[in-house]
């Protein structure tokens, strides 16, 4: 809620009882926690930018792209599978669905916060349930995405390597932290770390959302006379959505 910074006339602002930020202590601390979390995610994404720009980019014909550990892969060539459409080339469609699911769960969260302002318990319950459902859907999609990424394609990628003084070839399927079929080993490492760290945030968010839902159902916030906890956890949930917007752009699109 927007409140002007209020000072009592005749008293110094340093005497206390003043709220210069116009929000409660809990909400302010959530904002500063999210700022520090933004730095953590930026650390990961900026390092991704550093490592990616220090590798050669694929410069050949887009249609003739093949995986190689000699250049950074084109993301839409890596993420082109959709469940139940085996072998069909659908670049970025599945991750687009995931993005849509997370944005929608952010919308239902903001509707829950709005209902909380009106002390409307039934509406908060309804929108919190939709938000939890969205979070679980996103996590399930990510589980599938990881499984596909780790197992890899049927053909795999043939790499040349220098072993015991001679050049040999070997076929790699899927990805691990040590090597992967898609490109330089850093590519898979960043995939696991960035989407994994974000996924862990979503997981924590779902747990917090469930806690809020449970406390709403048991009437805790009605007794307390305030649904501000919905707002605080809502801030966290929107932040998780915000991070995904950046991950989607810098990992999947660019």
């Amino acid at each position, binding site marked *: 809620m927007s409140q002007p910074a209020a000072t009592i006339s005749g008293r110094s602002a340093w005497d206390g009882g003043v709220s210069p930020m116009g929000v409660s202590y809990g909400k302010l601390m959530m904002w500063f926690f999210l700022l520090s979390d933004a730095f953590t995610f930026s650390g990961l994404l900026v390092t991704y930018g550093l490592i990616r720009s220090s590798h050669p980019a694929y410069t050949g014909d887009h249609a003739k792209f093949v995986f190689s550990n000699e250049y950074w892969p084109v993301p839409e060539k890596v993420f082109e599978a959709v469940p139940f459409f085996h072998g069909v080339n659908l670049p970025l469609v599945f991750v687009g669905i995931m993005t849509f699911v997370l944005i929608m769960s952010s919308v239902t969260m903001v509707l829950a916060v709005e209902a909380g302002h*009106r002390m409307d318990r039934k509406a908060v319950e309804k929108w919190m349930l939709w938000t939890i459902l969205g979070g679980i859907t996103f996590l399930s999609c990510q589980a599938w995405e990881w499984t596909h990424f780790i197992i890899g394609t049927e053909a795999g990628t043939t790499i040349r390597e220098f072993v015991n003084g001679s050049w040999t070839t070997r076929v790699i399927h899927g990805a691990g932290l040590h090597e992967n079929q898609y490109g330089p080993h850093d590519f898979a490492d960043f995939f696991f770390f960035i989407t994994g760290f974000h996924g862990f945030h979503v997981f924590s968010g779902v747990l917090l959302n469930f806690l809020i839902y449970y406390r709403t159902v048991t009437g805790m916030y*009605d007794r307390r*006379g305030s649904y501000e906890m919905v707002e605080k956890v809502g801030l966290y949930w*929107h932040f998780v959505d915000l991070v995904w917007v950046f991950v989607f752009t810098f990992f999947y699109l660019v």
Partner: protein
Amino acid sequence: MEHHSNEPQVVVIPPDKEKIAHLWKVAGIMLVVTIFEFIVAFSMHSGVMKTSIFVGMTIIKAFYIVGEFMHLRHEVKALIWSIMVPIIFIVWMLIALVYEGTKMADINFLSF
């Protein structure tokens, strides 16, 4: 039914249609931006222009999430600046390290 006397009397305020319509409008904008990103992803060749469009669209989406959903746009100025000013460090770090990366590529992959 004596135990009911301990229950708080909660007055539910009816929903403000205009406010809810505004939230759905913001959701609509985000959806349109994402669809636009998809169209760009498949109709343009990669380059500075394409990357700039993606970064611009991302900033638009970030503005709506932080400004409207997280309500920051309607908070007091002191809070807005407390959150926004430190972001400068992230922007600086991004520019500095991506530039550094291109220089590393020049040294490590001379044969390319």
